[in-house]
């Protein structure tokens, strides 16, 4: 355990940290509004929990900064194994919420292992591409191990069922593989063969599915086909976003928000609540904050002095980017509704902790780049 050096502290990327704090602040404010109880006239306990998690997360960040991130390499597989083990425990001891089993109850709070999995996967992949990653580009057979590393948790998460988290894990995995350097020919080959395989397998399996299973898939691909479920949610979400107009309806004044038209207004659809209350102006600010976060993250990648750090930083940035992009696109009716939260913004302790610690790793890579 090395003590944090004074000079190290000077190299902390304060801009990045500030961006994160701003997003968390806006997020908590919106959680306050989304969960505000009209009947009691006071904020919901969820709001205070969110604040507590943010505080804990900052503590976690400080601790994370004290370690040299390269030590993580040694524990990469251990961390990964622990996260997979937690995921595997979910079906046995997990608690059910919203129709799927995603949480493990730990007395005071419920842990969502799929959130921890995101970071563990980034670490283990960064480690893999570091040790095995001595070539410029990878052939397909070189990618067997990372594919397994991704597939095991993805299947466990899909079984919960949590399509959103499994997809997100897939996007992060794919981004890291591409940036680590897959051969162009292999990539094309993968895309072509993959599409054909999905098409053929889909056709073969379709007839074997029960009507309600078919319906679920159709609904996912085309939510408009379910006007009473997600199709309705999307319309209401679009109305919420659009009705914010340029300057919004004002804090706590969102009418769509108060109507409970969305089952997940403080998690998956929090962007609609924010957009309704703060309008185009507020949304541009929020999007610029995310863009700056991603930009700054990619800067850290570019400046990293060694491969593990670069890939670690890239993985964390990819998590933030994909979650932010998919969530906002979903709220605006551009992509199907899948359960993906807005990073650092939506309500959720496990997610908040994971992302803040992930950002701390980014800061860690950034501030230790001068040490070579």
């Amino acid at each position: 355990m090395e003590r944090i050096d004074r000079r190290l502290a000077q190299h902390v990327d304060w801009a990045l940290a500030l961006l994160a704090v701003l997003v968390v602040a806006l997020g908590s404010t919106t959680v306050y509004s989304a969960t505000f109880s009209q009947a009691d006239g006071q904020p919901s306990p969820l709001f205070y929990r969110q604040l507590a998690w943010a505080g804990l997360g900052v503590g976690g960040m400080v601790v994370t900064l004290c370690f040299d991130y390269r030590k993580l390499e040694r524990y990469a597989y251990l961390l990964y194994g622990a996260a997979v083990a937690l995921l595997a425990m979910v079906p046995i001891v997990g608690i059910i919420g919203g129709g799927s089993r995603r949480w493990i109850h730990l007395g005071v709070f419920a842990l969502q292992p799929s959130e921890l999995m995101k970071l563990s996967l980034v670490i283990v992949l960064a480690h893999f591409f570091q040790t095995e990653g001595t070539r410029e580009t990878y052939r397909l057979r070189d990618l067997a191990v990372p594919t397994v590393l991704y597939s095991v948790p993805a299947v466990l998460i899909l079984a919960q069922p949590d399509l959103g988290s499994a997809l997100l894990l897939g996007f992060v995995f794919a981004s890291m593989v591409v940036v680590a350097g897959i051969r162009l020919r292999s990539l094309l080959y993968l895309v072509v063969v993959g599409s054909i395989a999905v098409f053929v397998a889909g056709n073969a399996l379709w007839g074997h599915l029960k009507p309600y299973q078919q319906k679920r898939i159709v609904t996912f691909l085309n939510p408009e086909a379910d006007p009473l479920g997600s199709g309705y949610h999307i319309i209401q979400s679009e109305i919420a976003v659009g009705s914010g107009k340029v300057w919004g309806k004002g804090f706590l004044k969102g009418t769509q928000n108060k109507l409970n038209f969305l089952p997940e207004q403080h998690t998956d659809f929090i962007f609609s609540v924010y957009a309704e209350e703060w309008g185009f102006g507020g949304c541009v600010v929020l999007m610029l904050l995310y863009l700056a976060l991603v930009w700054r993250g990619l800067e850290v990648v570019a400046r990293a002095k060694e491969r593990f750090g670069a890939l670690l930083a890239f993985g964390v940035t990819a998590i933030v980017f994909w979650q932010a992009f998919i969530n906002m696109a979903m709220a605006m009716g551009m992509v199907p509704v899948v359960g993906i939260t807005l990073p650092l913004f939506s309500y959720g302790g496990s997610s908040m902790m994971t992302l803040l610690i992930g950002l701390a790793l980014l800061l860690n890579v950034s501030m230790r780049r001068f040490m070579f």
Partner: protein
Amino acid sequence: MGSREPGWPKVPLAATRPGQQTDERDTELVRTRDLPDTFRRRLNAATALALLAFFVLFGRLWHLQVTRGDEYRVLSEHNRIRLKRVKAIRGLVFDRKGTVLVENRPSFDVVMVPEDAREPDRVIDRLEGYLEEQIPEAHQALTTNVERPPFQPVVLKRDVDWRTLVAVETRQIELPGVSLRIGPRRSYLYGSLLAHLLGYIGEVNMTELTTLDGYRMSDMIGKYGLEKHWEDYLRGENGGEQIEVDAVGRELRVLREVEQVPGANIHLTLDMDLQQAAYDALEGHEGSIVALDPTTGAILALVSRPSFDPNLFSDGISVRDWTGLLTDPLRPLSDRAVQGQYPPGSTFKIAVAAAALEEGVVNPFTRIPCSGSLWFGNRAFRCWKKGGHGWMNLHEAIVQSCDVYFYQVGQRLGVDTIAQYARKLGLGSVTGVRLDHEKAGTIPDSAWKRRVFGEPWYPGETLSVAIGQGYVTATPLQMANAIATIAGGGIRHRPHFVDYVEMPSGEIARPNEDEPIATGLRASTVVQLKAALRDVVASNVGTGKKARVEGIEVGGKTGTSQVVRLRKDNKKVDQLKLPRQARDHAWFIAFAPVEAPEIAIACMIEHAGGGGGAVAAPIVQKVLSYYFRDRIPHPEPEPAVADAGIDGANRQTARATR
């Protein structure tokens, strides 16, 4: 360690020393040189992609909030786009002849969306003015629905008449937020006649909402009987509409809709006319009648009285009605046919007789004397006939229901053997009919006694068991199934009441509910039992004379089961002077025609105040007379040609065309 890829210096952890740090500007220079070009290119591509993605998001945001912002603002005011759920039409229920037993009639509720009404209480006052009546439940509905999500309607008045309908419809403008909601209302056309079998529906409760898939608040769900056990077939799939409303909540147009899918229709094996006859025959009694087809186990009639009106539940039962049903001392909610466990009395002798013949402890010629009582272990076990029956063989003992004969046979068999044969006839375990809270009854044996009381079996107890008293209990359905098993030649079926299910697609599903089990009784045993049961009714000394049906051979067995012990002095007490709870139960179980049984029946009269032969047999007689009404010879002389063979053929055609 060292890296093979050019440009990626791999620095060992040991080299991490703050001292090595150089001036930042220098590092910048080193960095650009250090970064491999390929990696940098891929990173640039990623950055470009991220920029593009955010550009697309900005574009969409502009479209929604700036270009179409006004449009969406209007839609957001007053929740202009709403979801209206359309409930699925529950499946219908028919009897075996296609008579409709349960249907859905259209009914109208007056509902109000308080948010649309602005001043809900004043609107209700106005409504009361138009209707010229007070609707206290309407004001109440506003205050009790605290948990109601905004813009969900509350029901002001359920199932309204035409006058109200017209009043509301014509004054829509003056009644903002008020509208009519049409919906199917469950209607049980035969009311209490079929209450226990069909059951009833009710609003889903919290437990059902959390444990079952696909239900929403205020959905109806089967709570009891057929409605509950066949819920998955009956319920169908709810539909709904996305509607656009104006500022006072009037429907402007349907944006999109999903049609409801009606539930499947269920066709029962039940014969409604027979059910009615059985129900009427039980008039003035508490008890149960179960009639089965002994060749299939199909239930033809299943009655439990007193009963209740399931229509009370269609709308959500009122507290007053519900407590009334719960506190009624005669327990109308209890389905005596499957939930009532009674000592079967002498009807149980069928099982003992079967055991005796199969085990060879007596043969048809074995004679045992009856002197009116049997001394056993310091106590006299009495026969119901004080003077005794004299020397009896098995046939006579069944016909005259001689207790002493069965005491002796029981002793020879032992309780464990009796239990074994009783179980073969389906006693002591649930039949598996899909009705609520079916009871298994009790068939005691030595192991059971040890398990329940921790005591050994006493031989004296075997004597009580041999005449169906003591610990022995059975439900009317079990006894009907037991006599059906004998009637059917020793094949036991699983009683069931659903014949087939008609899916909305027209497809016919036949959930095979029967499960024939061969009891292994010898044909000779069955023949001898049937002959004896025939003479119970046919013989002038038989205990079941009152069940005779003109022209039809009926086999049966009476039973009178004591609720309290006989008086020590064995004096006859007038049953009707006893309190109701202390009176005997009367049983009669029967099948007919003896040669080719079509119907098996059990009748149990709770606290009848009379014996099986006196009270239950005449009731069964009524039901059988009704069942065979077309075959009972007319009073005027029949043409000479109508001999047995032709008569039999007529029967077949008569049955087919019924």
